[in-house]
């Protein structure tokens, strides 16, 4: 009797696992088919929406955009420090973060550069973010002294035949 109960319990357990496995296979197959179809027809989910819609669908790439690795914001190359978010939001709409990252300026010269962009390049009023951005840039990217002629560095030595 006891053995029978055990047997039927075991059988029930087995059936449960079996059903779960079937379900998993079915779900995987359905996803596989959808993905397969999307590869053939990538526009399938692009329902004709009004182009001016402002809703931003959350997708995986959005998470990647915020990714920080070894203290560096991967998609822009900025150092992860206070003011980075404001800098990205205001300084990478028109031009690349690469233009910012190449430059080393004092607070005064960053301010002059911002004014120039506002006067000639359609940059908006940065409000309270202006000081935050300038602090971020001068703290993390301070000017380096180069003198009148720097020494050759990073020489890639090779045997000349």
């Amino acid at each position: 009797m006891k053995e029978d109960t055990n047997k039927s319990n075991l059988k029930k357990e087995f059936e449960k696992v079996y059903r779960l496995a079937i379900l998993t296979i079915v779900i995987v197959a359905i996803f596989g088919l959808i993905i397969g179809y999307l590869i053939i027809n990538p526009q399938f989910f692009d329902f004709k929406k009004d182009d001016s819609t402002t809703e931003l669908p959350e997708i995986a790439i959005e998470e990647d955009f915020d990714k920080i690795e070894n203290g560096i914001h991967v998609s822009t190359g900025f150092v992860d420090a206070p003011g980075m978010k404001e800098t990205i939001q205001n300084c990478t709409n028109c031009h690349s973060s690469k233009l910012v990252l190449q430059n080393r300026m004092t607070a005064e010269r960053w301010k002059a550069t911002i004014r120039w962009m506002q006067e000639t390049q359609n940059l908006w009023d940065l409000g309270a973010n202006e000081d935050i951005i300038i602090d971020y840039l001068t703290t993390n990217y301070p000017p380096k002294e180069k003198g009148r002629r720097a020494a050759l560095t990073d020489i890639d030595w090779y045997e000349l035949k």
Partner: protein
Amino acid sequence: MQRRKFIKGATLASFASLVGAEIVYGLKMPAGYVPLALQEPDPFKLFKKDAGMVVLNDKPWNMEAQAHLLDDKVTPSSKMFIRNNGLIPEDINIASWKLTIDGESVKNQKSYSIDDLKSKFKAYTYQLTLECGGNGRSEFDPPAKGNQWTVGAVSCAKWTGLRLRDVLEDAGYNNDAVYIGYHAADLHLSRNPEKEPISRGAPMAKALQDETLIAFQMNGEDIPLAHGYPLRLVAGGWPASVSGKWLTKISIRNKVHDGAKMEGSSYRVPCETVAPGEKVADEDMCIIESMPVKSLITYPKSGAMLSEGKKLSIRGHAWAGELEVAQMDYSIDFGSTWHSCILEKPVNRLAWQHFSAEVDFPKKGYYEVWARATDSRGKAQPMLLPGWNPKGYLNNACHRIAVKIG
């Protein structure tokens, strides 16, 4: 490629989600325009550039060569620097492309199709040196803002086109003409169609030179897209920003052209020299015209190691803006002694000149080979940085390579 196809059918919202931020001027985006962040991500494939080129900026595109990449006598497109101020125009239709000649001083405003230009005017070919005004900016101290070019924003390709002079004379101009200004099809970074990314020009005297072309070919082929397809103004020896790409209009002005990046501190240096870091008012800044004398050692690449007793053959190019290079020297002792190089004549005016030398090293050790060009008026390249200026233009300091004998 798959990625591009996918993007074509997408909506603004899906663009924004891919970019990871709201596209602020999204509604002003032209139909069919693919935001830069989503354009072909590999500029080397997109522009067919050599793998050794360096990307300084991707919005807008700015790429430079390295000294050793510029070894060819005629620069191929794959090794030509890109300096863009705005977004490259899309959907270029050469059948409907028009070049208009207008301005206060034009006699008859005229528009020409590309076929009109090719059939009506004689074509000329010149090899012309184009160097970015900011080439070498990265060396200035205190640093100057902008793309931090090292040495590779220079090229000397073969350009084919009509003389600008012939076209200006066909439209006719009055005696009060002082300057020409170009307009082009590229788009401002803010995507505001009212704003031009760049619209520069040159005085009439430069516009009327034999070598100033409205080019439709580079190195015998259609001009590559990144370099101005289908029409480009080419004014050798002057900052390359005078050589407007994607040309749609030339205005004959009765005053100095006042287009984008003609005024303020753009492509200007202090009229009088200033101390490094000094503030200079806009009215004390003067427009750069001819570029200064300069040279590059293009062979060998810096970092060569040779065995003792071996001679080293060096070669490279030298140029001097409007002038010719008269003398070329090298030094292996930091300028204590100079030795002359063999210097060739230019193939035509405003083309760079080739130099070469056989260098002997007295004993083992670390050396630098410095190259110095002198122009036809006796002005030589400085070994130190030349006069500091707020925007970091005109660095023509001597180029040098490191060599080890051991």
